[in-house]
């Protein structure tokens, strides 16, 4: 908790964020590039799905980030609501747009995978519908956070919405268990993976690659928001 409060100082945060931004972003890009090469050229086609299994290497990271980003918004919102940590509010807002994009990419890549595999672009089943709902919840959060900032709000309403939205995460996670869905059940769990290691290993590159890339983007967006905040504060002082 002491570390958390130490980082509440934007100057201290920026000192860490400046070198961390290119490091996370470029490590992510390299891992994604190597992962793409491995996924598209070094793995065999699946015995059932054929070549379309290669979409898995981007679909899983986008799903992970679409859901993980909302977890980030929720944790930041709780930190903001409980400890009034000023950077937590900035972090939640910085995560929202990339999170929405990755949720949309999850839906799009899943749909592209579904056409050759299931024979349909879309099915209103539990997993797909709950993920689509999460995407709409992201859009609602972005609109709410923007409206709150425009009217000079203190950020509590978007933070409460950020916490409330977490109700969707277990629904998405367990949708394939609770309901009889077209989407396959969990392939990777804490107990292990049902995917053969010959197919699985490029995921060990693309998953951390996209995660680091995402972290780099969030850091850039946080730096941008903090700089805009400094400009607005200075303009207000100059006008007073």
């Amino acid at each position, binding site marked *: 908790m002491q570390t958390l409060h130490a980082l509440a100082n934007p100057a201290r945060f920026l000192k860490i964020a400046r070198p961390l931004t290119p490091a996370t972003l470029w490590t992510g890009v390299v891992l994604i590039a190597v992962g793409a090469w491995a996924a*598209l050229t070094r793995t065999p086609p699946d015995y059932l799905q054929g070549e379309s299994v290669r979409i898995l290497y981007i679909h899983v990271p986008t799903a992970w980030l679409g859901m993980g980003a909302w977890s980030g918004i929720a944790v930041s919102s709780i930190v903001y609501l409980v400890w009034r940590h000023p950077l937590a509010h900035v972090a939640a807002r910085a995560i929202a747009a990339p999170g929405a994009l990755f949720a949309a990419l999850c839906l799009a890549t899943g749909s592209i995978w579904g056409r050759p595999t299931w024979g349909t672009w879309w099915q209103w089943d539990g997993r797909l519908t709950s993920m689509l709902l999460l995407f709409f919840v992201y859009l609602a959060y972005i609109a709410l956070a923007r409206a709150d900032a425009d009217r000079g709000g203190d950020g509590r309403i978007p933070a409460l919405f950020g916490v409330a939205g977490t109700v969707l995460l277990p629904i998405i996670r367990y949708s394939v268990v609770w309901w009889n869905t077209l989407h396959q059940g969990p392939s990777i769990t804490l107990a292990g993976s049902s995917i053969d290691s010959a197919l699985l290993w490029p995921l060990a590159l693309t998953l951390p690659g996209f995660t680091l890339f995402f972290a780099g983007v969030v850091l850039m967006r946080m730096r941008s928001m903090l700089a805009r905040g400094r400009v607005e504060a200075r303009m207000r002082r100059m006008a007073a």
Partner: protein
Amino acid sequence: MNAWPFVIAAWALTVGASAVLAGLSYAGMRRAEAAAEALRRR
């Protein structure tokens, strides 16, 4: 059915959208930090 066009479309969409996101975030950060720095020097 040949799945390769679907594979290429999914990868191109994800990589393209990620590149646009990174580009816009970088441009926004540079613009905002330059404005803050210019104002600080005034």
